[in-house]
């Protein structure tokens, strides 16, 4: 039987470009289910949608029952908050918005951005989230990676087991043939500092602060302890067994000692310092060009 032609499905969702590669074109019912799943997630977590659950929590506070999607996501945030001494936290939403990363992408920082609320200002025990005051949650550190995992589940449920999902920086590879991914030099998009080789079931998340930056040293990776952007690290890449963990750790590697993250989470990483130095874990699948 001849092999079907591989297919690439490209679309826009949650403000970013997606591409799903599969051995054969995705059926339209499957595609509909995928976009519905993304919308469902966005309806809870987008702080850019006034009707989302997080937007309502930001106005009303109070106790909320969250869906199963939120479980692994917020549980990971609790772990990351712990291992980074508070540097990673979903409580940076208001501060990020005040710094200009708001629903209108105003990119105008207010004179006095809000402080990051104390960790104790909310309680989370699945399925109940209690916001003791109105809180603007931001799951930008791990949400997209988690969404990639959720999309993979939808594909599997529709019989599509072989796929490579690429949500612009968050990538989940589920095909036998290894996938080679260049690690883009943050200072020069025509160059790569290395190559990752992903085997089936591995996720890669890349994060860099230089492109998604505005104003005077402002970008989207905040240190929850200071409420200000971090500057020591300019790019990170993490390989893990889920998009969620890869994405969350890609943020954590901007903010904390790699030894602590390596001790706590099963993953591999590469990261670049502001002075161009590069560090990587001993078993990173691939190569760093030294």
């Amino acid at each position, binding site marked *: 039987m001849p092999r079907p032609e591989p297919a690439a499905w490209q679309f826009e969702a949650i*403000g970013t470009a997606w591409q799903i590669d599969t051995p054969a074109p995705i059926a339209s019912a499957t595609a509909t289910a995928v976009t519905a799943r993304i919308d469902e997630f966005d309806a809870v977590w987008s702080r850019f949608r006034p009707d989302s659950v997080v937007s309502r929590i930001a106005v009303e506070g109070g*106790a909320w029952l969250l869906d199963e999607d939120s479980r692994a996501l917020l549980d990971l945030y609790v772990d990351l908050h712990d291992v980074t001494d508070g540097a990673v936290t979903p409580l940076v939403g208001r501060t990020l918005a005040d710094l200009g990363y708001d629903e209108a992408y105003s990119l105008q920082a207010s004179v006095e951005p809000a402080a990051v609320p104390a960790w*104790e200002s909310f309680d989370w025990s699945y399925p109940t989230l209690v916001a003791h005051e109105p809180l603007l949650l931001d799951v930008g550190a791990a949400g997209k990676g988690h969404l990639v995992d959720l999309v993979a589940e939808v594909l599997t449920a529709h019989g599509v087991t072989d796929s490579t999902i690429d949500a612009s*920086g968050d990538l989940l590879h589920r095909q036998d043939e290894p996938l080679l991914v260049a690690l883009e030099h943050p200072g020069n998009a025509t160059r*790569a500092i290395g190559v990752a080789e992903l085997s089936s079931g591995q996720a*890669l998340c890349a994060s*860099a602060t230089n492109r998604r930056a505005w104003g005077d040293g402002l970008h989207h990776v905040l240190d929850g302890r200071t409420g200000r952007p971090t500057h*020591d690290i300019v790019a990170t890449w993490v390989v893990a067994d889920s998009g969620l963990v890869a994405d969350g750790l890609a943020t954590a590697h901007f903010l904390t000692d790699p030894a602590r993250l390596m001790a706590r989470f099963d993953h591999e990483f590469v990261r670049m310092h502001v002075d161009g130095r590069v*560090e990587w874990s001993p078993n990173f699948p691939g190569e760093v060009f*030294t």
Partner: protein
Amino acid sequence: MKLPAHKKMLSAAAAASVMLLTAACGSGSDDASTDSSSSSAPSTSSDDTSDTAASTYKDGDYDAEASYSNPGGESKVKVDLTLADNKITKVEVTPEAENGTSKQYQAKFASGIADEVVGKSLDDLNVSKVAGSSLTSTGFNAAIDDIKADAKA
């Protein structure tokens, strides 16, 4: 789904800044007692078998180093404090620039580290994908373009 208001739980408490300060002082004093080389304080605890350490401290100025975790690894802060009548009357925390990061990290995990990596041209690589900063939020990129356009107008 939002729960009814009567199910709301207790209000929050605790000032994070207080906890931070406590933590810094805590590890600082640990260092002082275990690593005499990092402290100029007169050693009062070398005689551990006695229980005189209970609650009296000599008045004076003390300093110690404490470490904390940051992106570069473990960084150090210098903590100066003044004791009078068993109370801390002054605390000053100074970050120390030197960053021993990668050495410590390498010792623990034997990871790779390289000075300024220039990389290779993408044209010379046979890869299926590129992962990095040029592929970010399209909404964000559009906003940046708008700002640039405004700036030129």
